[in-house]
């Protein structure tokens, strides 16, 4: 594929890996906060090419994996309503709620359809006029503009059998919450590639200025990640905390204003629970009052329960890099890849899931 293959050139990767090895002179801890980065690093086997002193920690980068049990319980209760069709991204159907998950209730007869785009939810609503289609609006800043655009389109078409359960979130608040922990010792942040298309690189300024974290916005291909890591390590070596853009072919400083305008038209920020991290202020997208007819919570009168984090789960600490999976009392016992509790295990490449696979 053009503009993909060139960035996977094995020779270039090899040389960049060697350069990274050369610049890493002491132990360095970098956090990545993007599910696509996590997956890309995994599938290309990048970890095996990183120098030992470079520790790469998986942060809360996967919007599906940080969807709280309370929200999943709400999804399930909607799925079990007569005449409701749930339209959802595929990776959400196995995320556990308190007692069950969407794939289990689907087996019991609930109608749960996997879609590839929120617009597919509109199409479903059109072809099922006697049912109400609920789209599960999970995602970060890359996905939420599309969800907002879909709500706008639904309002233009005056659809009365389509609504969205808004569980979208934004990245900066959890980062702030993590970085505020005095015990956290992260030297640098590999900033998300596609989220940054929307937010612009300016969104990470506060991390450098307020917390002294070195930041580099990175693309997803192996050469992108290696180059970004080299730039990060150089910043760290030189004692600089800057925000650099290594994905300039797609990311700018200002970001995508059109997308942000659409977000602002449809959504407003509200406090929202993050699996493993608890409630974080003004970190989630709620649907504005004027779009209430397309807000599933209002349309279907849903109560979202406050579900406390399961006893023992130490995902929060693991996400901050403060402890390793075996230090968590439920790891490998109540919490396994087939029965995950927190996001570190829900994500197939989360810290705990990866640890489980590699050390079995």
């Amino acid at each position, binding site marked *: 594929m053009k*503009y993909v293959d060139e960035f996977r050139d094995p020779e270039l990767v090899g040389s*960049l890996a060697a350069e990274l090895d050369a610049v890493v002179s002491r132990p360095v801890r970098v956090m990545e906060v993007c599910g696509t980065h996590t997956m890309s690093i995994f599938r290309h086997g990048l970890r095996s090419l990183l120098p030992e002193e470079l520790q790469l920690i998986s942060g809360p980068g996967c919007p599906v994996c940080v969807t709280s049990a309370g929200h999943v319980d709400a999804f399930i209760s909607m799925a079990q309503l007569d005449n409701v069709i749930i339209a959802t991204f595929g990776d959400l159907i196995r995320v556990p709620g308190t007692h069950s998950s969407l794939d289990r209730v689907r087996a019991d007869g609930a109608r749960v359809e996997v879609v*590839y785009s929120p617009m*597919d939810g509109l199409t479903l609503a059109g072809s099922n006029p006697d049912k109400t289609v609920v789209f599960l609006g999970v995602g970060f800043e890359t996905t939420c*503009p*599309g969800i907002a655009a879909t709500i706008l389109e639904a309002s233009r078409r005056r659809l009365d059998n389509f609504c969205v359960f808004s569980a979208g979130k934004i990245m900066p608040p959890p980062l702030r919450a993590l970085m505020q922990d005095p015990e956290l010792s992260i030297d640098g942040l590999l900033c998300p590639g*596609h989220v940054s298309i*929307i937010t612009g690189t300016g969104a990470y300024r506060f991390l450098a200025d307020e917390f002294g974290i070195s930041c580099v916005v990175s693309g997803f291909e192996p050469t992108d990640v290696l180059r970004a890591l080299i730039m990060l390590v150089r910043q760290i070596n*030189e004692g600089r905390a800057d925000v650099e853009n290594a994905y300039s*072919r797609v990311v700018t400083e200002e970001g995508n204003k059109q997308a942000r305008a659409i977000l602002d038209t449809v959504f407003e920020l509200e406090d929202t629970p993050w699996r493993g991290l608890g409630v974080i202020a003004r970190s989630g997208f709620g649907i504005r009052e004027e779009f209430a007819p397309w807000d599933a919570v209002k349309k279907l009168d849903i109560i979202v329960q406050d579900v406390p984090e399961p006893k023992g789960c130490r995902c929060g600490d693991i996400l901050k890099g403060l402890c390793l999976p075996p230090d968590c009392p439920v790891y490998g016992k109540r919490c396994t890849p087939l029965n995950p509790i927190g996001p570190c295990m829900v994500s197939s490449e989360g810290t705990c899931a990866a640890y489980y696979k590699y050390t079995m």
Partner: protein
Amino acid sequence: MRVLEIIEDPTGLFGAHSAIVDADGISKEVRLDLVDHPPEPGDYLIVHAGFAVNTLSEHEALRNLQLMREMAEGLDGGGGPGA
């Protein structure tokens, strides 16, 4: 993914509506509600969940590659705010 064709909004109210994009023999329709400026056939789009979220700058792509090569050869001076 490369833009093959732009489809205008049928109601004529909102300009370019979606695009047919293609990569290696797979094509799909993506919405253009989120792009800052309308793309042209031949442009490369970043696509996410059925929406185009940005156009890829070919000029910057080549620059990215060049910077990577320089970095790999140790020619890029070793530091300073990059890109």
